[in-house]
């Protein structure tokens, strides 16, 4: 990316002033090397977002920002309904409420290594993953409505997991304001046998070792100890979220002119928050958030069943569950005063600072846990929200490494069989129904997640707490 017209605010904060139709500037958090390596589309797409009605302060891009559909992935933007602000289906993304949850196991690495092969095989056979996989549940219409309204709380009510899990999930496991009636029949039909499935693409389930602790104090509050084994689950709202995104993107694109909205890119389709289509989208999107929370809750139950059988001394308790494709109503200092704004985070994680009332009481003093997923064979990271981050980008941080090349290019460079063998030699067991899928997700196809996390830490967006290294990876 050409950065010649960027203003450098700090070593990790860069600004493109508002010009032309931009209502606000673009601010990108990254070190110079990450910024130069970003594709030009990030700049173009962030500048397009900056033209949308009612946007406050700036369009922000996280250190892992890369080309997305309309909004850049790693983009954060807040809109005020009192200023004519909009809600954008493209600003949330297709996989609504895709996110990561991390579970303690209470066991040490050596205990898992002793049964690593057996645990990998059992997880692979128990967790539905990959193309065409279906779950054990088949939701009839009444149960579908209850799931879309109840989220993880609904799943716990059916016996999937524990009541104690709920306080460790954003929104207490149940997004308020969900309107199942705004979710189309097509979206519901796509989901009826996909509950409790991992999906495909970059979604995964990993058994990981806590390889390094960077902040002993926060790690203690989070309950993370050196060489403890944790389990991370990365997935979202499956077919339902995609169908909702697809349908509302079309409706918003077609209706934009009637709301006097000029779209610089049809993929940025949006509608005024106070409009009928805007309200309907918010009701459907919140239902999709509940779908994702319920999905991760059911998967958690399946993982617990496997551990109970293979490693009965393990006790899987939830550290936290965060989503990174959402639009939420939040109170922030915006436009120079306190406002209620609609914060879009697409491929960006909420990262509230210490003391925020939305953080569970047991974790509140440390800041909200943030999970940054790596790729197979590379590290993942646990971070914590900071006070400074609240004023930088509405309490937001990055979400992953970001792809460095296309899936097609990855399959030209690597063979799935070789990737599996190389990682096995490093002590990482990969289980996947698709070797081509493994090649597409090869570690080398992603950017250096360590550099992304360091930039987020040094920019002040979130504080680095621990590094997680995979032992087992189940890929979709």
């Amino acid at each position, binding site marked *: 990316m050409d950065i010649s017209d960027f203003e450098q605010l700090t070593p990790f904060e860069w600004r493109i002033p508002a010009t032309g139709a931009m209502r606000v500037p673009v601010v990108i958090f990254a070190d110079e090397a990450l910024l130069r390596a970003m594709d030009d589309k990030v700049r173009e797409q962030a500048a397009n977002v900056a033209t949308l009605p009612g946007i406050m302060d700036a369009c922000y891009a996280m250190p892992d920002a890369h080309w997305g*559909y309309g909004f850049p992935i790693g983009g954060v933007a807040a809109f005020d309904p009192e200023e004519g602000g909009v809600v954008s289906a493209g600003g949330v993304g297709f996989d609504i409420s895709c996110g990561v949850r991390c579970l303690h196991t209470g066991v040490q690495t050596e205990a898992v290594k002793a049964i690593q092969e057996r645990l990998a095989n059992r997880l692979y056979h128990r967790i539905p993953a*990959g*193309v065409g996989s279906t779950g054990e549940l088949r939701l009839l219409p009444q149960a579908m409505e209850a799931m879309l309204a109840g989220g993880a709380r609904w799943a716990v009510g059916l016996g999937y997991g524990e009541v104690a899990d709920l306080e460790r999930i954003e929104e207490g496991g149940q997004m308020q304001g969900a309107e199942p009636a705004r979710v189309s029949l097509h979206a519901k039909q796509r989901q009826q046998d996909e509950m409790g499935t991992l999906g495909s693409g970059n979604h995964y389930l990993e058994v990981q070792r806590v390889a390094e602790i960077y902040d002993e104090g926060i790690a203690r509050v989070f309950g993370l100890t050196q060489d403890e084994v944790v389990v991370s689950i990365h997935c979202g709202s499956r077919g339902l979220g995609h*169908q909702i*995104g697809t349908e509302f993107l079309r409706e918003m694109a*077609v209706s934009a002119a009637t709301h006097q909205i000029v779209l610089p890119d049809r993929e940025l389709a949006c509608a005024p928050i106070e409009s009928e289509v805007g309200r309907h989208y918010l009701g459907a999107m919140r239902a999709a958030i509940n779908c994702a929370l319920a999905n991760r809750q059911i998967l958690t139950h399946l993982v617990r069943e496997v551990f109970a059988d293979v490693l009965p001394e393990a006790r899987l308790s939830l550290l936290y569950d965060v989503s990174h494709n959402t639009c939420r109503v939040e109170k922030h200092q915006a436009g120079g005063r306190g406002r209620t704004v609609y914060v879009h985070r697409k491929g960006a994680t909420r990262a509230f600072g210490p003391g925020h009332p939305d953080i569970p009481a047991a974790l509140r003093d440390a800041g909200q846990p943030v999970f940054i997923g790596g790729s197979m064979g590379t590290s993942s990271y646990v971070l914590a929200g900071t006070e400074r981050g609240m004023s930088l980008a509405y309490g937001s941080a990055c979400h992953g490494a970001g792809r460095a090349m296309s899936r097609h290019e990855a399959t030209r460079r690597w063979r799935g069989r070789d990737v599996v063998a190389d990682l096995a030699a490093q002590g990482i067991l990969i289980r996947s129904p698709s070797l081509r*899928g493994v090649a597409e997700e090869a570690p080398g196809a992603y950017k250096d997640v360590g550099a992304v996390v360091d930039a987020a830490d040094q920019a002040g967006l979130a504080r680095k707490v621990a590094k997680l290294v995979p032992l087992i990876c189940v890929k979709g």
Partner: protein
Amino acid sequence: MALTAIVVDPQRLHPSERVEFSCNAPDDELLLADWLNAVIYEMATRHFLFCRYRVALVNHSLTAQAWGEPVDLNRHHPVVEPKGATYTALVVRQETDGSWLAQCVVDV
């Protein structure tokens, strides 16, 4: 056919069952996205792969028949799951040589 080819080699499929489609849109580009999304919906809910299409276009309206078979995980080894047709790089236009370009990025 490109939509099928990102999942599986279309030549490994049998056109044993037929599905009917119809779509309408304000313009040809949205019609392309609508058509692909209709196919993706049938692929997802029927667990199905298509290998042969017959399409008729009249004034931003499309009717089609598609043939294929249910996914057999052991025989087809599907690689990716198409999730939706996007509006990114969405183009439908007639080129100067008279040929047509229909282009769409599909999210997987």
